[in-house]
């Protein structure tokens, strides 16, 4: 049976969504998640971003690229935190998130990079070790740098 927007919202519009259960909606949910990420309901946009990553489908990265450009920091943090679920994190996406003005976004991106250890991002992490204004973020970058190819 095809996935509907109602099903997607039913999964996300909860105090504490069960993301494992929600991810069973699969790739068919991604177009609806993209709509929610761009919508006016910030709570749904944040949770839709999280789920788009957790589903880890081909279009997930596109959804997270949108979330990474969102004017609201809470959505960008959600993108940074869920990017760890992508099997292949596009360098453009991780690079954008690492350049975010918000420390929470950069911190979560580093955590995600530590989980996936993607190629092509080591130089950017070295730059963070040298220049990031937040000492906690510099420390986290130091922790993961040796794991990166």
């Amino acid at each position, binding site marked *: 049976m095809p996935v509907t927007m109602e099903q997607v919202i039913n999964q996300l*519009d909860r*105090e504490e969504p069960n993301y494992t259960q929600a991810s069973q909606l699969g790739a068919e949910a991604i177009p609806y998640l993209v709509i929610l990420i761009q919508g006016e309901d910030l709570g749904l946009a*944040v949770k839709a971003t*999280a789920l788009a990553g*957790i589903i880890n489908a081909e279009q997930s990265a596109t959804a997270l690229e949108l979330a990474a450009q969102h004017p609201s920091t*809470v959505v960008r*943090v959600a993108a940074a935190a869920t990017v760890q679920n992508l099997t292949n994190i596009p360098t453009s996406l991780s690079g954008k998130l690492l350049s975010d003005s918000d420390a929470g976004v950069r911190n979560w991106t580093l955590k995600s990079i530590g989980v996936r250890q993607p190629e092509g991002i080591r130089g950017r992490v070295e730059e963070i070790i040298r220049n990031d*204004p937040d000492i906690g973020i510099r420390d986290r970058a130091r922790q993961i740098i040796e794991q990166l190819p």
Partner: protein
Amino acid sequence: MPSLRDSGKIVGRSASIRQVARQCNLSFPLSLRQFINTPGCPFSRCIRLHIKVLTNPPANNSIETMLNRMREVYSTAGIGVVVASREDLTPAVLGNANFNTLNALDVGQCESGSPSNEQNQLFQNENGVPAGQRNNEIVVYFVQNVTLTGGGQLNGCATFPNGQPGAVVAQIGSPWTLAHEVGHVLGLDHVSGEHEGCPTSDPECCSTPAVTRLMTGCSTNNIVGTPTVNQTEINTMTSNNLTHQC
């Protein structure tokens, strides 16, 4: 002495000091200090909250709104909500300090009794809690994001380190999230009966959401009117050692 606003004695828009004082058989003339310091008026049981703000919620769902909603529903359980202290930990006050990264808080799996390292770190900030009282008072941290280690996003989380009761509330929380999360801290679970007729493939679907109950697990965002707590929940709340004689 807490302010009249933080004393939690006035609940709802229509109540006045005079009305509340009359309920408590206080005679006039009555000083504000006397009113605020009168024990058991108008509630016999109280909880004491300490508010720590890393991120202010949006203006249409301010902390005052959440406190007012909380007082509405807790008053139906005969429990007063006192704000014992407030602390502003926003970057505007602290600058580029440690709280920047804790503002996008990692709550692990948000499982009772298993706080994350970041929760342990955040909850170390307990300024304003009287010495020796940490285990008897509730600290609530308002943060930007409440994030599961795996990347999921929550409205809030009521997991806390042992002996440091409290909760975190995300910027996306609803007007009822504060009351809901403190409900968890006081021992309440989500209500049952919200998943009637759900398919086996999705046994926790919100087919029959309890939109009139504070402890709905579906979404407090969809609550209609002032939500209820039932007698069993009231008994749990009032018997918790975080609920004191006012």
